[in-house]
């Protein structure tokens, strides 16, 4: 026991440190055919010294990354207004800009930051949005992401998902020794990475609680896989399982009260449900095949999972009230690890076609299947809370990288790490303010 404790101390660090090495870099590879031209004018800084963050640049990058906007370069701007009085539409018509976003940032008190913004429609010559965001100066980037969310929703009709966060696993290889595994939390654009857990043993399957305040993951730090729950604000964590065999793929129910998971303690992998208050387990599937990768339908009434009970891995749906199981996927010989958008209609998964593994989307109403990616070894899809983008892991050369694709396949970008491998992205739900 003493020995075990020593090993734990030596190999596991629960950290909250900024790690520049784990930072993701964004490379947009494909945008929409006719993106909206928008000018995000540098925001006026109404405080001492220089602004703590170039708020306009964060917003500009968010909108560009969506693939639906083509932000005007600052060098092309004929004017840099920061108030409505300074906006002259002819300046923007001259450079074919459809929308202009201006704003002002200031610090009130010691640490409170306030960002005011106004959005103008150049063709209609009208202000179409105005508002402000306030928060701690250290959260300047998050305030900027919220402005981007408002602009995005005003212009597309879809809520933005920039003010959200990502979890992912990164690995630094250590040839001849044990690799370093890290569980990292970052902004949705990969900025501000925070290492939550560092270990010499694998870390897998990060997932979010529905309120975005807790996470769950699998860590091999005891030399066996076990499921842990961790509170983001305090770092406090609890080991939820430690069964013989697999302890994997934790998935929070939409109401936050229970967690679906994979256990093989009774001989082979089956889906179980844990009541998070009582820790009581209920076995849901009972089959000699592999049943794994549970995920919830947004209404909380059924769970999708992968099973090879038909010979090859396919997606099945388990109805929690009736206990009935039905097969959902029929196209292709390998469909696995489903995730369902909040609308309950778009199912994304790993789909094998022509020997390669791609991310595919199946419309659960029409059952039409669309392959979204053209890269190989694509895995671990995670859908943005607004349903617009799918983040996934893939390989570039022999390195693991993250990549994103819009649900219509039209927009693509890559997020390689500055070094090492990155994998298993988990896009957060909307964060409570």
């Amino acid at each position, binding site marked *: 026991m003493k020995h075990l404790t020593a090993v734990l101390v030596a190999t596991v660090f629960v950290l909250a440190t900024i790690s520049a090495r784990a930072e993701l870099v964004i490379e947009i590879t494909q945008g929409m055919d006719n993106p909206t031209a928008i000018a995000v004018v540098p925001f006026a800084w109404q405080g001492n010294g220089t602004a703590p963050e170039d708020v306009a640049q964060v917003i500009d990058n968010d909108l560009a990354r969506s693939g639906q906007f083509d932000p005007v370069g600052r060098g092309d701007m004929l004017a840099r207004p920061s108030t409505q009085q300074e906006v002259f539409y002819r300046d923007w018509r001259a450079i074919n800009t459809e929308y202009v976003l201006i704003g002002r940032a200031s610090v009130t008190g010691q640490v409170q930051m306030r960002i005011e913004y106004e959005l103008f429609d150049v063709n209609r010559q009208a202000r179409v949005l105005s508002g402000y965001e306030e928060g701690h100066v250290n959260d300047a980037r998050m305030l900027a992401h919220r402005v981007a969310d408002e602009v995005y929703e005003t212009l597309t009709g879809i809520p933005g998902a920039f003010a959200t966060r990502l979890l992912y696993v990164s690995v630094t290889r250590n040839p001849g020794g044990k690799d370093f595994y890290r569980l990292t939390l970052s902004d949705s654009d990969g900025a501000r990475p925070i290492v939550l857990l560092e270990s010499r043993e694998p870390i*897998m399957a990060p997932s979010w609680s529905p309120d975005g305040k807790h996470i769950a993951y699998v860590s091999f730090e005891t030399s066996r896989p076990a499921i842990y729950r961790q509170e983001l604000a305090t770092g406090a964590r609890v080991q939820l399982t430690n069964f013989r065999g697999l302890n994997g793929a934790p998935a929070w129910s939409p109401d936050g009260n229970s967690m679906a998971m994979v256990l*093989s303690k009774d001989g082979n992998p089956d889906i179980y449900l844990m009541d998070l208050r009582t820790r009581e387990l209920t076995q849901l599937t009972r089959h000699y095949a592999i049943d794994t990768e549970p995920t919830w339908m947004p209404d909380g009434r059924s769970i999708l999972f992968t099973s090879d009970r038909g010979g090859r891995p396919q997606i099945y749906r388990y109805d929690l009230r009736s206990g009935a199981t039905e097969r959902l996927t029929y196209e292709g010989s390998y469909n696995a*690890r489903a995730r369902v958008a909040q609308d309950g209609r778009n199912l994304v998964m790993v789909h094998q076609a022509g020997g390669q593994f791609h991310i595919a989307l199946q419309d659960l109403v029409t059952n039409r299947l669309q392959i979204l990616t053209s890269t190989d070894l694509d895995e671990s899809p995670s859908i943005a809370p607004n349903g617009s983008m799918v983040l996934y892991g893939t390989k570039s050369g022999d390195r693991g990288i993250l990549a994103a694709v819009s649900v219509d396949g039209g927009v693509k970008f890559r997020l390689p790490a500055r070094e090492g491998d990155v994998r298993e992205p988990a896009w957060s739900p909307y964060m409570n303010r």
Partner: protein
Amino acid sequence: MKQLTVAGKVLTLLFAAVFLAACSSKDTKDDSSAADAAAAEAAARSAAERAAMEDAAMAERRLQDAVAAVGNVFYFDYDSSTLKPQAQAALDAHIALLRTNDRSVRLEGHTDERGTREYNMALGERRANTVRDYMVVNGIASYRIETVSYGEEQPIAYGSGEANWSQNRRVELK
């Protein structure tokens, strides 16, 4: 000069000790001539035991050499958890050695990078279980065997392509 004096004293003491020891050994021999036969018998017995132990050690060494020759990694085909004949032969060497001791082993199942991570965790477990079952059938008690799956998380070769993948689809006996 002082050092030489000390060395001289040590030499004198040693001389005295050797002389005393020689006297005492002579005394013992005079008193126990009746035990000679018993001593000879004991010597013969211990020689036989020694020979038997040497044989056993040699046999054990042979088993260990056999195990070292086959290695402790058993490879599998893509998406398969069936034990290949070569892996079976290698495992037989380990089983022969394990029958001579009470050591516990850990079987770590691994897969290549194709397919999803959780499905590969299940596949790695299947592979480790296949090896475990083979060992149990051949007389190794199941409580001596621990199985753990690492799925695709700990590759031997990081690259893609069959040359790398074939090295990663494995069970390691530790």
